[in-house]
C-alpha cells in the first residue's frame, strides 16, 4: 500500500499501551513509524470493549480497539515472565521509542524502567502516559478516563446546573493525554535528531486536560470567580437569541449568531424574512435591538443588570420567533442555507450525519481497510501523507517475524 514516503519512515516504536495510550501510538503508526504493539498473551483487554463489528464480540471486532491500533504490527509477550522480558530487551537496541501506559513504577519493577532501557539503547525515547504522571501524591491513583476528566477540571464545566457534571463523550481524557504524548514524543525525536540525546516524555492525563478548562482557570486567578456549568448558555450570563442549541424538525442545530466573523443578526432576520417566517421582528422594538445584537452589546448586558432587565422581554420575544423558525425546518437546511449567508449556524451532528457529511465525503475522508470503515486523517501532510498502512494486528500476528 505504501507508495510515497512517510514522515516517520524508519522510526521503530515498541508499544506497551492498552486502552488508555494506544491512540498515541496509532498517531505515530499512521505517520509511518514501525509500531510493534506488545500485548499480553490473550491480547489487549481493549479487544473486549464494545461496540463490535456486526455486534459480534471477538478479539478482532472491537471498534475502539480497531481504530486505535491501525498500521501497527502485533506481538504477544508476558512481561511477568523473565524469558519474555528478555525477548523484549532484545528488541530495544533497534527501537527508537518505547511508549507505555502502565502505572508508575511498573516498568521499573519489571526491570524495564527508563534507566534500564538506556543501558540497552543510550538514546532511547521513553514516553509514559498515566493518569497523574510519575510523581506527586496522587501518582498511584486508579485513573480511568472519568477520573481524569473529573480531576482535570473539564467535567465541572459540562452540563446543566440541575444535573450532575457531565462526562465528556468518547474518553476525552485518554485522547487528550495521547495527543499530548504524540506531540511530546515527536518533539523528543526531533531533539534526538539534532543532538543525539534521548529522554523521558511524561504525560499526566490530568495535566493534559487542564488547558481545556477554557477561561475557568483565568476567571478564578484574575477575579476569584469559579466558572460553573451553564448548560446551553455556555459562558453567557443570560439566554441570547441565536446562541446555543435550537431544535429543528429532525434534530438540533447550534447558533452563534452575532459574534465576530459571522454575519450580523440582521442577516439571520433577512433569512427569516425570505422564508416568510420573521413574524413581527421587522418592527420595533425588535428591529432596533436586532441591529445592535453583537458581542459588544451582549457584553454590555453581561455587566449591566439594568440594561439587561430593560432588554430581556424584547430578547425573549426574538428568541421565541427564532425558535419557531428552527422548528419548522430541517437541521441540514438551517445549517447549509444559513452558512451560505455566512450566518454562524452549525448542525448538531449525529453519528449518522457524520457518516453522511457531504464535506467529509467530498474530501474522501473515511478509509476502508480490511472490510471496516475507519475515520480518516486528523491532518494531511503534502509530502508524506497520513495513511493506514495495514489493518490492526491479530493477537500475536507478528510473533514469528519480530521475535522469531
Amino acid at each position, binding site marked *: 500500500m505504501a507508495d510515497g514516503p512517510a514522515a516517520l519512515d524508519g522510526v521503530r516504536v515498541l508499544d506497551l499501551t492498552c486502552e488508555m495510550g494506544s491512540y498515541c501510538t496509532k498517531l505515530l503508526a499512521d505517520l509511518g513509524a514501525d509500531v510493534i504493539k506488545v500485548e499480553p498473551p490473550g491480547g489487549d483487554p481493549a479487544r473486549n470493549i464494545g*461496540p463490535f463489528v456486526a455486534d459480534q464480540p471477538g478479539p478482532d471486532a472491537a471498534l475502539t480497539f480497531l*481504530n486505535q491500533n491501525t498500521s501497527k504490527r502485533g506481538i504477544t509477550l508476558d512481561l511477568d515472565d523473565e524469558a519474555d522480558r528478555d525477548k523484549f530487551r532484545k528488541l530495544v537496541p533497534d527501537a527508537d521509542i518505547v511508549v507505555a501506559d502502565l502505572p508508575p513504577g511498573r516498568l521499573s519493577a519489571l526491570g524495564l524502567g*527508563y534507566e534500564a532501557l538506556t543501558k540497552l539503547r543510550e538514546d532511547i525515547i521513553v514516553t509514559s502516559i498515566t493518569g497523574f504522571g510519575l*510523581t*506527586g*501524591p*496522587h501518582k498511584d*491513583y*486508579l485513573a480511568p478516563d*472519568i*477520573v481524569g476528566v*473529573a480531576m482535570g477540571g473539564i*467535567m*465541572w464545566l*459540562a452540563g446543566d446546573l440541575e444535573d450532575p*457534571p*457531565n*462526562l*465528556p463523550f*468518547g474518553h476525552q481524557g485518554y485522547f*487528550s493525554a495521547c495527543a499530548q504524548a504524540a*506531540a511530546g514524543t*515527536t*518533539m*523528543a525525536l526531533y531533539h534526538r*535528531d539534532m543532538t543525539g540525546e534521548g*529522554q523521558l516524555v*511524561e*504525560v499526566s492525563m490530568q495535566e493534559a486536560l487542564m*488547558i*481545556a478548562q*477554557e*477561561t*475557568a*482557570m483565568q476567571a*478564578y*486567578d*484574575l*477575579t476569584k470567580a*469559579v466558572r460553573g456549568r451553564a448548560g446551553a448558555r455556555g459562558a453567557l450570563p443570560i439566554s441570547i437569541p441565536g446562541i446555543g*442549541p435550537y*431544535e429543528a424538525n429532525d434534530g*438540533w442545530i447550534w*447558533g452563534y449568531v452575532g459574534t465576530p466573523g459571522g454575519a450580523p443578526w440582521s442577516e439571520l432576520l433577512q433569512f427569516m424574512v425570505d422564508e416568510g417566517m420573521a413574524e413581527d421582528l421587522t418592527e420595533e422594538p425588535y428591529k432596533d435591538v436586532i441591529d445592535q445584537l453583537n458581542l459588544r452589546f451582549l457584553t454590555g448586558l453581561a455587566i449591566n443588570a439594568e440594561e439587561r432587565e430593560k432588554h430581556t422581554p424584547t430578547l425573549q420575544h426574538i428568541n421565541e420567533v427564532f425558535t419557531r423558525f428552527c422548528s419548522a425546518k430541517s437541521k441540514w437546511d438551517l445549517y447549509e442555507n444559513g452558512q451560505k449567508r455566512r450566518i*454562524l449556524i452549525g448542525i448538531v451532528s449525529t*453519528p*449518522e*450525519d*457524520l457518516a453522511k457529511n*457531504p*464535506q*467529509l465525503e*467530498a*474530501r474522501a*475522508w473515511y478509509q476502508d481497510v480490511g472490510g471496516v*470503515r475507519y475515520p480518516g486523517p486528523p*491532518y*494531511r*501532510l*503534502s509530502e508524506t501523507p497520513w495513511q493506514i498502512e495495514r489493518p490492526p494486528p491479530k493477537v500475536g500476528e507478528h510473533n514469528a517475524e519480530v521475535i522469531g
Partner: protein
Amino acid sequence: MAKQALEGINVADFSWFAAGPIAAQAMATHGATVVRVESESHMDGLRGVGPFPTGKTGHNVSGYYNNYNANKLNLTLNLNLDKGKEMALRLIKWADVFITNITPRVIERWGLTYDDLKAQREDIIAVYQPMQGFDGPHRDFLGFGAVLGPITGINHLTGFPNRAPAGLGTNYPDYVVNPMHTLTAVMAALHYRHLTGKGQRIELSQLESVVASLAPAVMDYMANGRIAERAGNRLPHAAPHGAFPCQTIKVATPFGEADEQRWCVIACFSDEQWQTLKGALGNPDWADARFDTLAGRKDHEDELEAKVGEWTLPQFPEDVMEKLQAAGVPAAVVQNSRDLLDDDPHIKERGYYQYLDHAEAGRTAYDGPGFRLSKTPAEYRTPACMLGEHNQQVCKDILDLSSEEIADLMVEQVLF
C-alpha cells in the same frame, strides 16, 4: 543544561483565537522563536474577551488571550497594505514553520498560500488549520469553536438524554485535540525535513481532526447502523460509573459567600471493584445479590446510583476519593478552577501552573505544559506578548531593517 528541543526553530505565527496560538505556544515554550503577527485592524478576537484582571481594561490584559501567548514576540503588520504583505513575506523567509487558522478566503487574499510561501522559503513547513478544509462544498463554512464542536458530533453524544445537546460548556476542540494534533504533524514534518531537506504543507481540517477522536460512535453507525445517543455519565461496561453529590460547602465569591454543591466520581469496571465499593459502603442490606454482576448492576443502575449518592451526600469528595482509592476503587473529586489553582496538592507538588509578571496584567497564572520532556523541559520565560510590543526588535533583528526603514513603516502605518 541541554538546549531546548526547538532552539533554532523560527515560527511565523499568523494564527488567532486558540487552536493555532496554543500549538505555537508549545513550540515557544520549548525553545522556538515565535513571532505572533497581528494588527490593530485584525487583532486576535480573544484580546477583547474576558476574563480581565479586576479593574483593568485594554487589549493586553485578557486572561483568555494571555494564556496562549507566552514566550512570543508580537509584530503588528497591516496586511491590507502592499508594504505589509511585503514584510510578511520577509518574515516567511526567516521562518521554518508558518502557522495559521485564518479562513481559506483570507489566506488567498493576503497571499499566504503554500505556493506563495514556498517562493520565499523552499523548505518551509506551512500549517493551515481551516475549519473544514481548503476544498469541498463546505470549504467556506464558518465555525469558531462554539459552532465547530456541535458539527463534530461531540454535543450530540455528551450529556443527559433529557437535555438539549449542550456539549462541554467550552469550545473544547480548540484547546487540546486540534493544537496537539497540529503539533504532532509539525514535529513529524520537522523530523522529515531534517532527514531530506524537504518542507511541506500541512492541512488540519478542524472538523476532521475532532471526528478522528470520536471514532467508536461513528464507526458503530458505519458498521452497525446504530445512532448512539446521549447516555449521561454511564458506560456500557462499567457500573456504577458516574458523578455523585457530596456535601455542600460555603465558598467566598466576588459577590459574597455562597453555597457550592460538591461532587465526586466513582467507577467500577469489575465485580471485584464493586465488592470493594460495597465493603466501603458498609455492606448495606440493599446491596444484595442483584448487584453482584455487571449485568445485574446495569439492570438496576438507577437504584444503584441513588443509593451510592445517598452514601456520598454527607461526605466531602476529597474523603470519598482518598478512602476509595486506598481500597482500590477508581474515584475522584470533580474539581473546579479553585480546586486546581489553590488546593490540589498533587498539582502543587508538580508545579503545573506557571506564574509570570506582565507589564499591564500583573502577575497571573498560565497553564503549564501538557507533556514534560525530562532533559529539555518547557520554560515559561516571558509573559503574553502585547500588541506591537516587539515591532522594533523584530524589524531590526529578524527582518534586518534600518532605523530609517522602520520609521517609514511606522509613519505609513504598516506597523499598525
